[in-house]
């Protein structure tokens, strides 16, 4: 069993750990750092539920080893709330009823956060394509798209 010492920044705080080499970033966040907001659906890169932001890019945390995250800056769903309140995207998704069971929600929120950072002027089609790698089995997607569109509108108005 190979364990590797790593230091990384998660939601602005320096964290250390000694994960086994085979441990994915998703399992490290959940089991070692107790950040269970990152959800694991398929565990092989198909569903998008485990999406987090690594050095500014949306990444599937089940398709990256924890040891590979050494030295990176990571944002998880726990890092989006501002002063205990919801972030702009979270509030817009709340207002649009963008979830039902909520299992896929963290992945959608992280993917949409990364996308809106780069494309605040995105239209509906671009948002649909950007979120096409995330699977939701409840909503039928329309309310999720509505929430992200509303967030984009609010970001532009600021």
């Amino acid at each position, binding site marked *: 069993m190979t364990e590797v010492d790593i230091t990384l920044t998660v939601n602005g705080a320096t964290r250390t750990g000694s994960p086994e080499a085979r441990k*994915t970033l998703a399992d490290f966040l959940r089991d070692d750092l107790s950040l269970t907001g990152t959800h694991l659906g398929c565990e092989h*890169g198909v569903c*998008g539920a485990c999406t987090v932001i690594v050095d500014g890019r949306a990444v599937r945390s089940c398709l990256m*080893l924890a040891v590979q995250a050494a030295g990176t800056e990571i944002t998880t769903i726990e890092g989006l709330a501002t002063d205990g309140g919801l972030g702009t995207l979270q509030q817009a998704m709340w207002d649009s009823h963008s979830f039902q069971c909520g299992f896929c929600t963290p992945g959608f929120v992280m993917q949409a956060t990364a996308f809106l950072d780069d494309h605040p002027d995105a239209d509906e089609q671009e948002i649909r*394509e950007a979120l096409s790698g995330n699977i939701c089995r409840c909503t039928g997607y329309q309310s999720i798209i509505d929430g992200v569109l509303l967030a984009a509108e609010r970001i532009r108005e600021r």
Partner: protein
Amino acid sequence: MKLPQFDYAAPTTVSEALELLAEHEDEASVLAGGQSLIPLLALRLAYPAVVIDINGVDELSGVSAANGSVRIGATTREYLAEASQTIADAVPLLAAALPLIGHEAIRSRGTIGGSLAHADPAAELPAVARALDADMVVRGRSGERVVPAAEWFEGYLTTSRGPDELLTEVRFPRAAPGTGVSFQEVARRHGDFAIVGLATSLALSDGTISDARLAFAGVSDVPVRAAGAEDLLVGEGPSDELFDEAARRATADIDPPADLHGSSEYRKKVAAALVRRGLREAVGSAQERQ
């Protein structure tokens, strides 16, 4: 599932990586972007004793323009290639295919060399490499060799890379002036593997097709060039009748696999439609670039 146990090595130079490969050969898997290898591990379809992570080998990443070609380091991430002006200008077919690879989060990690070494026959990059006759540069115990795409893809997920060898660079030829391109694919959702995909590159000079390259993804266990159609097109002026005949020739000899996404017959029909669409779009883009 969780990944099986393995030993982990993270070399920082190509020579260190080659030493590890020479030592472990078939027992080792090379980890680049991990967007194919980690699912294989999670599904327990791969059980390497050692994973050699080459993400820390800085010399393997980067895009540079050379004489007549564009050299792309094996671990260059797909999203960086997508943003490369050099690739947009000199290898427009690659630029057209990149946004269709997986989803945004996949391209954040996935690498050019990783996709070509994994050699999924339904993937975009193998078809592009085959269409453009890209060269794979591999290094191993006996030094460096350059493998043309035609000799690289040997079968389903199988290349001519030796067990002690590492794919270090891919060289794509620069598109000639007057070259038009198109990457067409039909998939159930944006970002999924193509049911059928087609890479098309056409060069027009004085209204006549001087070079034609068509390579299918998803119709066989390797990417497939449509040689019969290419021969037909060269020397002719573009027309709908010509493209109809090219579609017939391109699909006459293929026997695509059947799965739950489509029968073999359906894939053949899609392939013919993509040939017509691809040729029309490539002609349009050639006229724009002249």
